[in-house]
């Protein structure tokens, strides 16, 4: 039996994705090194690792974003390779280069593919050359608002004004009329300059009801690129995906083939290796290249469930030089994922901080949970609000949808609000059940009150009864002190209540 691809791997990330990568490393017999900020001393990814290296204070700029500290930690721990996860430094070409220059393997794509795809305009040009359809628009940066007005006339209104260095919805404007373009150009360009240090802008035709469909690819270091099916991620709020699935529902087989071929061509055109995602917008039978994410995606798990392989394992094998020759996995069934964020949908999706007081994670047929959640975990204000993901696989989409809805009914989190109940409402909405969703659907539903929608009367009544019984049993909380969640009345059955009772061993009561 061959040994593991690497002896030791450092995971340069935190939270659920760090846990996800550590698990595969352990499956492969690889020794793991976690890194942590001061805020993450007690985090699950630190506990599950063989070794752990401190990085510095809680803010990401002083910990998870410090390339030189990460490299020093890798050197100290004897790691041969670094997996960046997603977010933080995962799409930072300079970091990828620094890792390789330090004599380590970067478990991700080549730096040059990353920089090319990170520049949206350079990517558009490269894709056009490779024969991948791009959204009609400009291929060179616009020098001025006047130039934008001229270019827009050729494209036709409405147009999308986008930042060349863009990402995360920043520096994007929909411009509906020519007279609005000049002002929009100035504000969007300023926003992009502030966010990315690069105010260059370009124009694209505006699509009014696109679906977000992306293709997972894997490339090896020998130039082979394989597409592993599509994922649909049209359920979005402010460019943040909330529900994802594999495959995209309702496409014709020739459309799936065309998407896969376009994604493979995109990967080959930039000399891609490792796992990556080519994102497309799809509308009325046509599709266009949107951008490429040169890293593992949050939603990679749905592809894994349908294709029966471990993408993190393949990233590691590819980094160690393994070939994709002979890899030809057959997709089976359908998988859905919802993101569990510490946000309050009833309060404008306000991020929540606090402590997870109670937790029951779902399980059972077809269900997978990727997370770093534990009761007692403190969720601070420092990082992303995503706590984890709940996934379900089924023989078909309907079975996967029912399993995931059932899983979300089992899920219980107390201590802070999550997007779990909202995601369950999405799954049970008739539009979603029918696979009739575009990227504007979720926000329209929230505006119109269609989501989360009213609860059935008998559930509302049962919940009200539970609330009254709770108050009856626990009594009124004594102090309205927000710093002490659940504080005031002692929970019945708490060990402190028992310890406080006088007993032959502790006749005065109080902790013995």
């Amino acid at each position, binding site marked *: 039996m061959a040994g593991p691809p690497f002896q030791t791997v450092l995971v340069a990330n935190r939270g659920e994705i760090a846990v996800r990568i550590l698990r595969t490393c352990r499956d492969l017999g690889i020794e793991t090194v976690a890194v942590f900020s001061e805020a993450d001393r007690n985090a699950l990814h630190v506990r599950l690792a063989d070794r752990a290296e401190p990085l510095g204070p809680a803010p990401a700029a002083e910990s998870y974003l410090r390339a030189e500290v990460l490299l020093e930690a890798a050197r100290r721990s004897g790691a041969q390779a670094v997996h960046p996860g997603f977010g933080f430094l995962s799409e930072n070409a300079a970091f990828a280069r620094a890792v390789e220059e330090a004599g380590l393997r970067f478990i991700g794509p080549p730096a040059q593919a990353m920089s090319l795809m990170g520049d949206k305009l350079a990517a558009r040009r490269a894709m056009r050359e490779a024969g991948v359809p791009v959204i009609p628009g400009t291929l060179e940066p616009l020098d001025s608002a006047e130039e934008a007005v001229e270019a827009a006339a050729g494209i036709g209104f409405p147009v999308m004004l986008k930042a060349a260095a863009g990402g995360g919805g920043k520096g994007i404007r929909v411009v509906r009329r020519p007279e609005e373009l000049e002002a929009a150009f100035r504000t969007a360009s300023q926003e992009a300059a502030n966010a990315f240090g690069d105010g260059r802008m370009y124009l694209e035709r505006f699509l009014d009801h696109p679906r977000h469909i992306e293709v997972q690819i894997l490339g090896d270091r020998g130039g082979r690129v394989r597409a592993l099916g599509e994922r649909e991620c049209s359920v979005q709020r402010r460019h943040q995906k909330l529900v994802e699935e594999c495959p995209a529902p309702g496409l014709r087989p020739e459309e799936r083939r065309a998407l896969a071929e376009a994604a493979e061509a995109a990967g080959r055109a930039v000399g891609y290796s490792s796992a990556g995602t080519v994102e497309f917008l799809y509308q009325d039978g046509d599709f266009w290249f949107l951008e490429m994410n040169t890293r593992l995606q949050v939603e990679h798990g749905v592809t894994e469930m349908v294709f029966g392989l471990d993408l993190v394992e393949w990233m590691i094998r590819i980094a160690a030089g393994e070939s994709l020759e002979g890899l030809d996995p057959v997709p089976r069934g359908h998988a859905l994922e919802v993101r569990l964020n510490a946000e309050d949908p009833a309060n404008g999706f306000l*991020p929540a901080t606090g402590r997870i*007081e109670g937790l029951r994670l779902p399980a059972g047929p077809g269900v997978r949970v990727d997370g770093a959640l534990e009761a007692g975990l403190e969720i601070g204000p420092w990082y*992303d609000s995503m706590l984890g993901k709940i996934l379900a696989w089924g023989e078909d989409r309907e079975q996967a949808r029912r399993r995931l809805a059932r899983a979300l009914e089992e899920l219980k989190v107390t201590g802070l609000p999550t997007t779990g109940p909202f995601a369950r409402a999405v799954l049970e909405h008739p539009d979603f059940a029918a696979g009739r969703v575009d990227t504007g659907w979720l926000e329209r539903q929230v505006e119109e009150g269609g989501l989360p929608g009213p609860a059935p009367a008998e559930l509302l009544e049962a919940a009200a009864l539970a609330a009254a019984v709770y108050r009856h049993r626990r009594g*009124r909380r004594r102090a309205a002190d927000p710093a002490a969640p659940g504080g005031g009345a002692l929970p019945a059955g708490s060990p402190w209540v028992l310890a406080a009772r006088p007993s032959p061993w502790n006749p005065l009561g109080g902790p013995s």
Partner: protein
Amino acid sequence: MKYRIQSPGGEALEIEIRDRPDGRLELLRGGEALPVEVSGPEPSGALHLLAGDRSLEAWVEEGPGGKQVRVHLAGRSFTFEVLDERELLALEVESHRPARPETVQARMPGVVVDVRVAPGQAVAAGDAVLVLEAMKMQNEVTCEQGGVVAEVLVERGAAVEAGQDLIRLQPAPED
């Protein structure tokens, strides 16, 4: 003890709960009595009710500020205000008193990125008075009752803790 459970949608349910000698509870509503065996609430919030052969599990916790109760049931979350008979009576008395001054507090730790009001300015219930950045997101902080700004206690750029006082209001002068 009698309780009134109010949903944010305005629905209210009134119920009386009595402790029975056998440890069970008796829920009385509309002249009907329902004996219920109760397990919990556990420290996690888990609460289980057996009413006859009907099994009902809900996880219940205090809402923000200790006024509300949040119930997680069958994949849904409900927030109620639960008042017992003493509190209903106190509320009745309170409603005849003049309005009390409001202090706007931070609901989460973060950094003040904008202060939108100045002392002397009149604000209405629900107005955004300040913008707080937490978890890379900017969030508007609103006042509940409104009034006239008496004092701004934080400056732009200040880091604040959850529960920290931000802005003190005094009741608007009556017309």
